[in-house]
């Protein structure tokens, strides 16, 4: 695949460091995101997906590790103007469309916030024109500009959030569960909008979600997280056809099937971390089982997986 846009190296995010209630939300995650692709990140609630996203965009200061954007370290920077430049390239779409828009601001002011901060419009008229363009891009009308967020439905609000992120013309967008608060008919609307924007503007996405069928639909590659660690990373089709890590297998077995006959025969596989039976001196890390297919495993498991792959 093409060039790397983002490299995440051994990223760690621990909370309450030095206190008894230490939380290792993200514990040594390494992956790359290529230009123009969509990387889906899945896992159960509380496994650190959102924290990973928020740490990448610097909402939290990483405890350890590196995030390289186009080869530049994101977390090392302290200079204000450099930070601003970086803020324009990376943006985020949030989970809750009801909490992500300031109830006291008009839609125009919400969308134009990035334009105002970065001085992208010289006159008021230019600013409003950009806002109208963005509203059109996400399928809303000019007339919506002077209204307040509470007047919109969930899907419309989420599209306003997308317009806000697009206002600074970013290259990379972190979508933090952008559809999990929407009902199913609206989910398709938002996901298709994201896909359309990706085609038109060549955007790169990190798509965080827990709806596996939706992730499969939108992602090129998928990473599976479990308790702050990435356990498997593979191209979307490969992961669904040939899941290697027992946690991934368990996760995939939980997808409900729309066909009542096969649904009746579906077997839930539960995951028990003790099946690994890691010994103290065993080195457990991400290993490439097949080209592009990484699994978090020990040397012994690595051989097993490889054999399983050949068959």
């Amino acid at each position, binding site marked *: 695949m093409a060039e790397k846009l983002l490299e995440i190296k051994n990223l760690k995010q621990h909370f309450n460091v030095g206190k008894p209630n230490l939380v290792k939300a993200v514990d040594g995650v390494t992956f790359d995101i290529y230009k123009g692709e969509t990387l889906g990140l899945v896992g159960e609630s509380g496994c650190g997906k959102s924290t990973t996203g928020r740490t990448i965009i610097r*909402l939290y200061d990483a405890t350890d590790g590196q995030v390289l954007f186009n080869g530049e370290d994101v977390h090392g920077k302290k200079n204000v103007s450099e930070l601003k430049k970086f803020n324009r390239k990376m943006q985020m779409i949030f989970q809750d469309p009801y909490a992500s828009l300031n109830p006291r601001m008009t839609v125009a002011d919400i969308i134009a916030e990035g334009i105002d901060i970065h001085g992208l419009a010289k006159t008021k008229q230019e600013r409003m024109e950009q806002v109208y363009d963005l509203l059109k891009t996400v*399928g809303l009308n000019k007339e919506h500009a002077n209204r307040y967020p509470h007047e919109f439905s969930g899907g*419309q609000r989420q599209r306003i959030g997308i317009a806000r992120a697009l206002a600074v013309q970013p290259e990379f967008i972190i979508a933090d569960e952008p559809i999990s608060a929407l009902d199913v008919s609206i989910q398709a609307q938002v996901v298709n909008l994201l896909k359309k924007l990706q085609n038109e503007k060549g955007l790169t996405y990190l798509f965080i979600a827990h709806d596996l069928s939706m992730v499969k639909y939108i992602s090129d590659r998928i990473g599976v997280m479990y308790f702050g660690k990435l356990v498997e990373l593979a191209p979307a089709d490969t992961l669904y056809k040939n899941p290697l890590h027992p946690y991934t297998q368990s996760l995939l077995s939980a997808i409900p099937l729309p066909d009542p006959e096969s649904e009746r025969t579906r077997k839930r596989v539960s995951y028990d971390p003790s099946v690994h039976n890691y010994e103290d001196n065993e080195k457990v890390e991400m290993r490439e089982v097949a080209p592009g297919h990484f699994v978090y495993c020990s040397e012994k498991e690595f051989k097993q997986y490889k054999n399983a792959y050949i068959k």
Partner: protein
Amino acid sequence: MQQISKDKFQIVGNEGINSEKIEKPSLSFWKDVSIRFRKNKLAMFGIVLLVLLVFFAIFGPYMTEYDYAKNDLMNTNKAPSSEHWFGTDDLGRDVFTRTWEGARISLAIGVLAALIDFTIGVLWGGISGFKGGRVDEFMMRTADILYGVPYLLLVILLMVVLGQSLGTMILAMTITGWINMSRIVRGQVLSLKNQEYVLASRTLGAGLTRIMGKHLIPNTMGPILVTMTLTVPAAIFTEAFLSFLGLGLTPPLASWGTMASDGLPALKYYPWRLFFPATFIALTIFAFNVIGDGLRDALDPRLRK
């Protein structure tokens, strides 16, 4: 199941229907609040009362020919009449003129105290809540220590050191008065700063001033306003109370507190000297309290229709 042939269906499509259109007229948050506030009769009565009081405070002293400080020893302790509407006091000064002269000072103290509390409290509480961690700890403990200083002792000390004046009085009131406001603001900021719209603003590169000014303070304005409207009567009452104890303003300056204090010994024979200032203190405090209550109800999102 009965089969229905396909030709009985026709695709209508959704052309021509603008599904994104919003029919409801656009209402900003404050418009919504003012509609609900105006429905509250008691609060509106408070507003009318307050407008009347302010009107008389501004124009009242000019309505009579008397000067508020001028003695007239021939006409001491006169009962209310067509000449002296509220009567005169022991030095022959017109009580009507003095009442409104006092209203100016009492209202000014109330409003000034509220404004100073607002400024310091919002800044202190806002920064403390937003920065969090050690900064928060330091700022809040400082506030706690100040809060623990005995109030009357502090006032007496200030009066002795700086002399009795309006300025000293306001200083004495605000030196601890802002703490309440800062605690309220801090609590609000703590709960708002992790809202997703604040995070969105941060990812766009917004600085502290922008986040405070555009996101945090506007969303805290409700509780701030309510606290302010309740600070005004508290300050007026404190002034009256301090003046009553003889710690307040010095004659011939009049405030409702000093007038009540002067009028008390003559209560048995010349009751109007206490009655008028006391009534107006009560009315003002009543007006502000009802307005504050009305605002609190109007700002409560749960009552929104």
